């Protein structure tokens, strides 16, 4: 009784002060242990979830870029090390395959009124995760530079190349940049482009790879053409390497992650003029297709299976508090939120344009991760001119087939 009085007083104080560090989420007891990736939008969610901590409710968060490597072992333990795993389109797959997360329908019914239907990741009728933000790669361009040279914002790769060509002739040595570092980044670029062609990665209903076709070759040729307009160091570029080059004003066109857009134009950007003229558009389309060449990703959370029902309930409610519409306050520009009440800011232009252009989601297949690795390891030789596109695709297929056989997806 006494506790309730305190809670009411505190809630009143909270409303009065419009956002204190302490909130009552109505959780009686339990332990909430969050494992998540490490970027500003997730910090905002975790910080809010942590407000649910009280004398009887413990909330801890481990924010690490290594999250996807520790999530499976951590959730396999019984009881699991973490009660909440914040995941993305690809990292949920191993959790589902190993049956490590629990269906959330019961919790949604009781405490999930705030959720939009589009936030629910429903698999075979059961809600397994709650998404709260979207991400995708798209075009970054310098408004002032394009205007100066009379170039329209490129909507297709042909237009992008024409623009790059024009800039190069006008003295921009390397007008274009993209995440071409072999491994995860390079593979993501291939997947973006290939999704844009509308072709499928695998033969229907099986794990047999189907990218060795004309579209696969067209994608590789496009990637190679991109390298002609990129600094010779392109083979070592990831998001972190690209940012300073853009900020130094050496590049006028770039394909990069939407989640970085806020940094490029934010208050901390080193060169105000460059930041202010940085604008975003949908990923260019390829060939005759009208689909932006970008994979759409969502970030969301799951609740571990191997924990007590009490902890699961506490975790769900803490996360509901974490992603309540109030989280948007002051964090609007940190992500493309899928939460009710989100008003897109300028930083969201690119991802919103991708969504509008009906870009495709990153495939949520159990064997896509193996293809991602095989692509990341086998495309750089072609880009560097040491082997043919056909050979590169054959190498990808060989590497993928071997890995998928070992993982039990192929015979």
């Amino acid at each position: 009784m006494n506790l309730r009085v305190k809670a009411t007083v505190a809630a009143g104080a909270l409303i009065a002060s419009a956002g204190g560090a302490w909130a009552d989420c109505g959780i009686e007891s339990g332990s909430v242990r969050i494992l998540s990736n490490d970027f500003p939008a997730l910090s905002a969610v975790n910080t809010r979830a942590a407000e649910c901590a009280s004398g009887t409710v413990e909330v801890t968060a481990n924010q690490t870029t290594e999250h996807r490597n520790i999530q499976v072992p951590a959730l396999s333990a019984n009881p699991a090390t973490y009660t909440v795993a914040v995941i993305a389109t690809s990292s949920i797959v191993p959790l589902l395959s190993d049956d490590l997360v629990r269906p959330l329908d019961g919790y949604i019914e009781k405490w999930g009124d705030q959720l939009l239907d589009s936030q629910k990741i429903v698999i075979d009728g059961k809600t397994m995760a709650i998404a709260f933000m979207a991400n995708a790669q798209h075009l970054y361009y310098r408004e002032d530079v394009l205007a100066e040279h009379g170039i329209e914002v490129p909507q297709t790769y042909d237009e992008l190349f024409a623009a790059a060509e024009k800039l190069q002739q006008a003295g921009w040595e390397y007008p274009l940049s993209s995440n071409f570092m072999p491994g995860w980044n390079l593979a993501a670029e291939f997947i973006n482009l290939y999704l844009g062609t509308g072709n499928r990665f695998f033969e229907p209903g099986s794990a047999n790879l189907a990218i060795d076709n004309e579209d696969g070759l067209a994608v590789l040729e496009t990637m190679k053409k991109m390298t002609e307009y990129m600094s010779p160091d392109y083979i070592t570029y990831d998001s972190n390497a690209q940012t300073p080059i853009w900020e130094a004003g050496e590049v006028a066109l770039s394909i990069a992650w939407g989640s970085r857009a806020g940094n490029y134009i934010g208050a901390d950007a080193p060169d105000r003029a460059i930041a202010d003229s940085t604008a975003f558009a949908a990923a260019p389309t390829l060939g005759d297709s009208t689909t932006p060449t970008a994979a759409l990703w969502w970030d969301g959370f799951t609740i571990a299976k191997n924990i007590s029902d009490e902890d699961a309930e506490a975790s769900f409610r803490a996360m509901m508090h974490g992603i309540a519409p109030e989280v948007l306050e002051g964090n609007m520009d940190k992500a493309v939120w899928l939460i009710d009440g989100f008003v897109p800011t300028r930083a969201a232009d690119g991802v919103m344009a991708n969504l509008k252009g009906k870009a495709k989601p990153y495939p949520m297949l159990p064997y896509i991760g193996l293809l991602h690795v095989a692509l990341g390891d086998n495309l750089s030789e072609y880009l560097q001119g040491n082997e043919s596109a056909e050979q590169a695709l054959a190498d990808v297929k060989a590497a993928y087939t071997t890995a998928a056989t070992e993982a039990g997806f192929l015979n």
Partner: protein
Amino acid sequence: MPHKTFLAFIWPSLLAMILFIALPIVSVGYQSLFIEHEQILIESETCGPFGCDTEVSVDAAAMAELREAQPAGRFTGLGTYTNASHLAFDEIGEIFATSENFGEIRNRIMNLPFYKALIFTLAYTFIVTPLVIILGFAIALVVNSIPRLLKGPVIFFSLLPMLVTPLVGSLVLYWMIDSRGIIGAALQALFSDPTLSLKASPTLTWITLFVYGVWHSAPFAFVVFYAGLQTVPQDTLESAMVDGASRWERVRFVIVPYLMPLATFIALMQLMDNFRVFEPIIGFSAAASATSLSYLIYNDLRASESPLFGSAAATSLLTILGVIILLLPVLRRNWREFNRKT
């Protein structure tokens, strides 16, 4: 030392080695003989923020039953060792059957992931090891002959590359060779070639990695040789001088033979270390042009969300095998010397 005393002293270390080295290796070997169970896939309707689609997913419950019955997975024997990602017997057979000349055979074998990594690993080992020994010896000779006052600071600075964590050391060099970095920009100016990039060309990447390897390991050889130099018998050196030996002859005929066992020791350590080359590949983001066996293991375990344990285990055992083959000549030589002495 009587065998009994020897055993009494060695058993704690022996126990630790069995527990923490031998048994894990046996377990890795066991794992390398298995692959995942055949995945039971089901098609289900998946909905999310970007719409609904019919997607394939793993039937987790059925898989749990399979794993319960056979926790290690499906037995394949040496199947993982011979598949396309490792020794690639089938692919090599086909390459020999369908290639027209030696150049094509070489190129096609070099395109297989394991052999690509093996070639770089061997090149790194056999180029860096001798250079480390020669450079370390040269530094030791120089430091030994400079005035006492300067010795301390010089030794400290010579040791720096070894004190720096490999990953940090490689990152520092990596930024210096960037086309905006001091070395990269200087080289571009020197050869007046604005497209020169140490990071882009495979050959230059290899050379960069070799240079880094020598830079990083030479201090180790230097320390060992410098310690050895302090024990070179002065009377032998003096009698050589009386005999009219030049400085070079004294080094060649007195110091080098005297320090030979140390060179063997350094060679042994360096062969082992260099065969496991890994950090510089990460630090220099060099995976596009250079992969090593250790990198392959890392990639199997870390690149994908679900690690390929069998594949990584097979590469690990092949690496151990490689180290043993590399060390055999040196070990045999040591064994013979040991027998001669006793």
